[in-house]
């Protein structure tokens, strides 16, 4: 455990007095945002540059890992189990203590920002699990996505409904009653409501059927065509690399291979080790 006595419940699970449902588990690297630095020179739109770090005071999980994405591109992080794919994405999102290296977005060094402030800066993040408000309707989920916006967001909501027509049909249904694929659409839709400058998806196709997976990928391509850069972690390496403009293969927290999706698919080494021949 963390050694904090307040976080020890001594095995008390009595739900008639305590309610663990939906409690926060996020452990951001920074409690308070540090300064933002302007960065000179040419650099990709979003880049996690030479990131080395781990959770809290724990050992390093990432070693000199670099991930970047530009407008209109889909960048995909693939790799074997435990390679640090999700960790790399979380590092970009400020949930990991990045001890060296930096994260830059749109010409600004945002390494010291909290995840919340990164959302304000234009990062849309879709976590892998519990990424929707299950007890709220689809429409309320989208409204909550637009919480930081003070302007009229009905246009954006129409766009999301246009992208995911099924959501418009089920707008008044609690999101928790939807199927796995539809839930993922709600999750992506919620993130799009902030009108982010970059969209980050942590295994959007985890736990959905192959047909639904293909449909989700189609939608993701559609989003990318609007010019929104997408950074994505994927288990289904082959399908993901097929739609990727850029691919990063991570092994044990290090960049093992990188290149365009097609290059990686054609690379015999990558094929042999990760794509099953």
């Amino acid at each position, binding site marked *: 455990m963390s050694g*904090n006595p*307040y*976080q*020890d*419940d*001594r095995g*008390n699970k*009595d*739900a*008639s*007095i*305590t*309610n*663990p*449902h*939906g*409690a*926060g*588990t*996020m452990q951001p690297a920074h409690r308070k945002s540090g300064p933002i630095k302007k960065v000179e020179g040419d650099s990709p739109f979003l880049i996690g540059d030479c990131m080395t770090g781990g959770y809290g005071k724990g050992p390093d999980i990432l070693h000199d890992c670099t991930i970047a994405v530009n407008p209109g591109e889909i960048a995909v992080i693939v790799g074997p189990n435990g390679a640090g794919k999700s960790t790399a994405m979380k590092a970009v999102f400020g949930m990991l203590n990045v001890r060296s290296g930096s994260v830059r977005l749109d010409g600004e060094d945002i390494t010291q920002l909290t*995840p*919340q402030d990164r*959302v*304000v800066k234009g990062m849309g*993040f879709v*976590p892998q699990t*519990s*990424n*929707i*408000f*299950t*007890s*709220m309707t689809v429409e*309320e989920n989208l*409204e*909550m*996505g637009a*919480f*930081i916006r003070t302007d009229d967001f009905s246009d954006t909501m129409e766009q999301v409904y246009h992208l995911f027509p099924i959501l418009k049909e089920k707008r008044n249904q609690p999101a928790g009653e939807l199927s796995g694929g539809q839930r993922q659409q709600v999750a992506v839709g*919620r993130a799009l409501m*902030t009108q982010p400058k970059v969209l980050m998806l942590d295994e959007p196709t985890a736990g959905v059927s192959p047909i639904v997976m293909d449909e989700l990928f189609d939608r993701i391509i559609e989003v990318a065509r609007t010019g929104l850069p997408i950074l994505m972690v994927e288990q289904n390496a082959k399908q993901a690399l097929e739609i990727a403009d850029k691919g990063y293969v991570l092994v044990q927290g290090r960049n093992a291979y990188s290149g365009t999706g097609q290059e990686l698919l054609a690379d015999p080494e990558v094929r042999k080790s990760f794509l099953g021949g």
Partner: protein
Amino acid sequence: MELLNALVAFTNFVGVPAIAYGSQLAIGALGVTLVYSVLRFSNFAHGDTMAFGTMVTILFTWWFQSAGVSFGPLPTALLALPLGIAVTMLLVLITDRTVYRFYREQKAKPVVFVMVSLGVMFMMNGLVRFIIGPGDQRFSDGERFIIKARAFKQMTGLDEGLAIKTSQGITVVTAIVVVALLFWFLNKTRTGKSMRAYSDNEDLALLSGINPERVVMYTWLIVATLATIAGVLYGLDKSFKPFTYFQLLLPIFASAIVGGLGSPIGAIAGGFIIAFSEVTITYAWKKVATYVLPESMAPDGLVQLLSTDYKFAVSFAILIIVLLFKPTGIFKGKSV
């Protein structure tokens, strides 16, 4: 005629008091359920928050009365209520700042919060007794009855009278208004929705730009309002005594759990279930039975299942039955 008399007697001694008591419990349970779903612990200090709010309202009522201000036929306490709510809000916010916030920053487990609220309960309990004393206080004034038993008898020609106290009428009307406002707030306003979002998924709420401290603050404000209203209504209907309010915690918790913790509709339903069970089980049915049964079967005893001294046993029994057989409560809360 006999049946009609039985019905009137039943309404007079069970129906009306239980509806009023149920409304008071429901408003109390709404506060408990709100803390449970948004702040994620059972607030043991709720009964004493009610006591504090009522005490402040009583003090302002006395002040108004001494200044000659009155509210016509309605109790002066209703005029003092907004002030009572405001002071209670202040106390609750100070408590949150100085006590609960520390544990939130530590990301303390809910059970730690429960124990903290127990400490807060003792502090508030002491504060209330220190200021107003442990004794009984009556503070209702104005017209005592909406319908008097004698007037009802003359009106209908029945043997049994039906009396409705002003406090009972006010309780029911206030409860309806409060519940309607709360549901509107939670389901239609941006702040209300953000509270539900925070309760549903704290991390995602944070990522959506919802400020947790803001949500916590609004929750406490609403809880202070509900607690004060419930406390004042109970005090008007019966009387104010700090220890009674502390004891109210049990039926209130029972209501919230029976209805389904975390479910506002459940809290209301639970309040009425507990109130009706308590009143029917502790009521002496002799009168009603005499009207309904043929003369030969008329009961000799009081036909009272349980003495009123044991009314808390009823809440306890229901609580245990629900936890054993339907732990999520009637309206499927988040519990257990």
